């Protein structure tokens, strides 16, 4: 398992897991699971397009994932974000279909990008992977505070001069960068599961944001390491184990939350509908709603 060709796989997967844990914290906080699925999946169309014109597949990935980020943010200005994301992924996949149809050559590695059987990178590819990973982490560090504020109190952030649309685009660009560095290494299925599974589980075990991010990274590392090890032993695809471990971690987290009870300090119940019946509402000016 630790033969030299596998060492690169371990290193690459570790780097991916760290970045996924960090960015995944915000992905889950912002409820951007759909975007985390759409960008890696749609970016594959960029790889296909690059293959078509003989360019570097990674560049195609990068261009398409950044374009996808821009499109989700742009469409999201006038439409709901989930509709914008759906339209974006549909367009990108349709373009991928178009690109693939233009060539009669069959490229199994393009499909491998989707399901994530691409593990193990040559040393030369490791450097750009690590470089983009570093950029992602620095970006998250720089954006940390305004991103936190606009994710939990968007109206307050707006009042403080933080444009929520700009924050949204910035976040999506970071996800696009993660996509670009991770998809060639682990494939789009894996990066999607790594972005949402570990962070989704982590938040069940702590109330502090930095600890949640740390746990997210830890869970992501455990996920990939276990998945690689078991996959190597059983010869079954890694994507299966990553998906299964993510689901398991999430379920354990939710069970733990439910078991611990949701109001440990004994807060009062929220206002019920009956309490909302106020008196003194002027019915001269009817509720326009």
């Amino acid at each position, binding site marked *: 398992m630790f033969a030299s060709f596998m060492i690169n796989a371990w290193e690459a997967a570790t780097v991916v897991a760290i970045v996924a844990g960090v960015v995944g914290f915000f992905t889950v906080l912002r409820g951007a699971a759909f975007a985390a699925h759409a960008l890696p999946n749609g970016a594959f169309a960029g790889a296909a397009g690059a293959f078509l014109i003989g360019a570097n597949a990674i560049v195609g990935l990068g261009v398409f994932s950044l374009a996808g980020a821009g499109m989700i943010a742009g469409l999201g200005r006038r439409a709901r974000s989930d509709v914008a994301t759906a339209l974006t992924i549909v367009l990108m996949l349709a373009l991928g279909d178009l690109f693939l149809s233009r060539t009669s050559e069959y490229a199994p590695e393009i499909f491998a990008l989707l399901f994530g059987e691409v593990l193990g990178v040559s040393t030369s590819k490791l450097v750009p992977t690590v470089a983009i990973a570093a950029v992602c982490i620095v970006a998250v560090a*720089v954006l940390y*505070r305004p991103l*936190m504020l606009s994710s939990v109190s968007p109206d307050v952030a707006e009042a*403080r001069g933080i444009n929520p649309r700009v924050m949204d685009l910035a976040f999506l660009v970071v996800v696009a960068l993660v996509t670009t560095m991770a998809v060639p290494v682990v494939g789009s299925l894996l990066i999607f599961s790594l972005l949402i599974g570990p962070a989704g589980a982590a938040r069940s075990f702590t*109330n*502090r944001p930095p600890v949640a991010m740390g746990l997210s990274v830890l869970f992501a590392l455990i996920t990939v390491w276990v998945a690689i090890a078991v996959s190597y032993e059983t010869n079954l695809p890694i994507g299966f184990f990553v998906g299964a471990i993510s689901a398991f971690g999430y379920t354990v987290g939710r069970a733990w939350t439910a078991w611990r009870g949701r109001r440990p300090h004994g807060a*009062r119940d929220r206002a019920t509908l009956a309490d909302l019946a106020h008196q003194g509402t002027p*019915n001269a000016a009817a509720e326009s709603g």
Partner: protein
Amino acid sequence: MIVKTDPMASTGEPLLADGTSVGDPDTVLRVTDVTVSLGGRRVLDRVSFSVGAGGFCGLIGSNGAGKTTLLRVILGLIAPSSGRIEVAGGTRSRRNPQIGYVPQKIALDADMPLRARDLVGLGLDGHRFGLSRPTATRRIAVDEILDAVGATEFAEARVGNLSGGEQQRVMIAQALISRPKLLLLDEPLANLDIRSAAEVVELLAGIAAEQRIAILLSAHDMNPLLPVMDRVVYLADGRAVSGTTDQVVRTDTLSRLYGHHVEVIHVQGRVLVVSGAEHQAHHDTDPSPRGP
């Protein structure tokens, strides 16, 4: 008492020849003739009022009357078609640290890994880039403000698990931690039970008095505010009347504001504003109707 239509008269100061007032050094917020048109509709129509330091002003109106729009104009998020906003002496800008804001929609998920004190801390420096350094000064500032709003007991709790009233306190702490001169709250009492609403009002009144902070709070029901309000701005269809509660919440004043007859009824210390028969009130072509 002669009713003036001049907006500056609200402060009681005499006017100078160029139309400005001597200016009350205690005035924290002055709204002058603000008009906002959105999509062809005049959402706010020549609204004028002012709030002084330590003052508690209720912005009353039903849904759609323009309350949130007015607050957003004061925050600098909407540019008025005409009129002026002055906050604590200067003209408002988007990032004015003198204004604290508690928005209407508080979407705090129970799944968010965020403690009450973390949320409050974001109010201090959440608008700046980078990571916060966990200094003792910062922790003390957060502790102090949590204590001031009575939230110390649940400072470590997950913010999404708190009750509505508790979340409201935490949001108020978040708004207050930067020591603003003016605190804006958009319908903070709307989803609270009566007891929690009373507690929040009492808390705010105490803060206004002790810290000499001006408070502008919007609501569609003024009753919880009656004990503490010293000024009212009553909005109907974008038009506003402002003054003390006794001056504004009267049958004749509100009927003129609405443009048809409404009845103001006092019942057991509460106020009810009820639509009377829908007969047209006499139209005053004279822009300065005679007062009582």
